[in-house]
Each structure stands twice: as structure tokens, then as C-alpha cells.
């Protein structure tokens, strides 16, 4: 089976530049799922990889799970139009997020906060921007499948 190439779907990667909400799902060896909100995402070194940044204060369950079961899912939704994609794969390794990655997280949070302001007013946007971004763990993920997760009849359709 050929390796998945995320660059073959530019619109999937373009999502990373939008005002997005990012969430991560994992599950432990007993098949108990866990949730964490991520604050940043970027492409990884390989064409089939992404790196997701989860603030340390909320990362503990995901960290524990990937040591027992490295399957992981990352769902990224554009807040402005609900276009949503789910990246399902395996966590290959975890490290501290670098300074530049933390800056990316701050930029992504500010961008999504502006959009939240448009929907929920200034107070809503400001409270969104108060989400903690740092320190954060960088979860490196080899993506095996990408699904359209946009609300509607396409939800769950496999794209890659």
C-alpha cells in the first residue's frame, strides 16, 4: 500500500491556515477514550505526518494513552464555515513544543478568537483567547486516513 500524501489534497492542509478548533481523541489499553483540545497543528517532516500541540495542563490523558495504544485521532474544524477534517493515525513520538511551535499556537488561537468574537461577541472572543497554549507537548502523528467530518451527509466520508 502506498504512503498517504497529504499534499495531494491542498484544501485539507489549507484548513490549518484558517480559524480552527482542534481536538484530539485517544484511548487507553482498556478502550476508554479521552479528549483534549489542541492549540496548534502543522505538517510534519514527512508528507504523511502532522504535528499537533496540546497544552501540558490538559495533555496528561492523551500522553498516558499513546504509551498504551498509539492510535490517535485529530479533528480540525473551521469555525467560520464548519468545514471539518479528521486525521486518524498513530502517534510516533512526543516531545516538548519548540518556541516557534508555541508561537504558531498563539497565532492560531488569536486567529480563531477573532472569529469567535464575530459569532459570540467581544467577551466570547476574549475568553476564547484566554485558553492556555504553553507549555505544550508536540505529538508527531503518522496519518493513515483522512475523513471529511463536516456536519452533514458527507460526515465520515474517507478522503485519503
Amino acid at each position, binding site marked *: 500500500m502506498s504512503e498517504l500524501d497529504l499534499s495531494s489534497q491542498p484544501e485539507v492542509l489549507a484548513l490549518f491556515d484558517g480559524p480552527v478548533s482542534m481536538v*484530539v*481523541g485517544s484511548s487507553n489499553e482498556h478502550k476508554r477514550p479521552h*479528549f483534549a483540545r489542541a492549540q496548534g497543528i502543522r505538517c510534519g517532516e514527512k508528507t504523511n505526518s502532522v504535528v499537533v500541540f496540546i497544552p501540558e495542563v490538559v495533555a496528561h490523558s492523551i500522553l498516558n494513552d499513546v504509551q498504551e495504544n498509539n492510535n490517535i485521532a485529530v479533528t480540525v*474544524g473551521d469555525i467560520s464555515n*464548519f468545514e471539518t477534517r479528521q486525521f*486518524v493515525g498513530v502517534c510516533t513520538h512526543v516531545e516538548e513544543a519548540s518556541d516557534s511551535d508555541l508561537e504558531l499556537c498563539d497565532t492560531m488561537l488569536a486567529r480563531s478568537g477573532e472569529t469567535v468574537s464575530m459569532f*459570540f461577541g467581544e467577551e466570547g472572543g476574549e475568553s476564547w483567547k*484566554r*485558553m492556555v497554549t504553553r507549555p505544550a507537548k508536540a505529538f508527531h502523528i503518522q496519518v493513515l486516513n483522512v475523513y471529511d467530518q463536516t456536519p452533514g451527509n458527507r460526515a465520515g466520508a474517507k478522503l485519503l
Partner: protein
Amino acid sequence: MITEDLIPALQGIVPAWIVTTSDENIPNCTCVSQVYPVDETHVAISNQFFSKTFRNLQNNKHAVVQVIHPADNRMWVLEIEHVRTETEGALFDEMDMQLAAIASMSNMEDVFKLQSAYVFKVHSVSHLTEAQRPAQSL
């Protein structure tokens, strides 16, 4: 367990997220339009189109759902267990009505149609206070 504080986060104003896991232990993370308070220890989640979530729950009844307060973005994570599915009755009708309002707010009337209401027992509620800085520190 479902406190007054939590109720605004269960009105469908901000979409929620649910994580389930398959029999092969692969997690699935998807958006949920409606997490509806049933009683102090149960919530119901609207099933409009999430087939993978439905399939996963056939084999593994455990899930987690995150809800957000629409005024200040306070976040809670609920550990839940699927106990039954309803396709008619008072709960279904109440959720159907609320879902129609949510769909209208988000201009998604054409895609939001309630198929069934999944009822879950709530095992725990965690308020993620650590995920947000206090207002004065911005």
C-alpha cells in the same frame, strides 16, 4: 452531577465534541450539535449523521464529550456510557425541537435531521479550569 452551572453548555449554542473508540481501539473524534440534559445523571446526544460513532458505540459504550459554556468558553469533559437509544417519545420530540432551533441559528436546516437520541449515563464531570487563564491575566 449535572449542575445548574453546566446547563448553558448543554443548549447547543457551541458545538460539542465526542470521542468514541472502535473495537480495534481506534479513536473517533467528531462534532456534536446537541448534548441534552435528561436528568441529574444522564445526557442525550443527537444522532444526525455520525455513523462511525454509532458503530463504535455498538461495541464499546464508553465515550467522552466536551461541552463549552457559550458566554465565557468554560469547558467541561463528561465521561459517559451509552445506555439506550430513543427514536420517539417526549425526549426525542424535545431534542428534535431544540435541534431545529440550533439548525436555524447555524443556517443548516437542510442537513440537521434528528435520527435518534443516544442516552448516556454520566460517570464524571470535570471542569477544565486549568485550560483557561483567569480574565484579569489577559
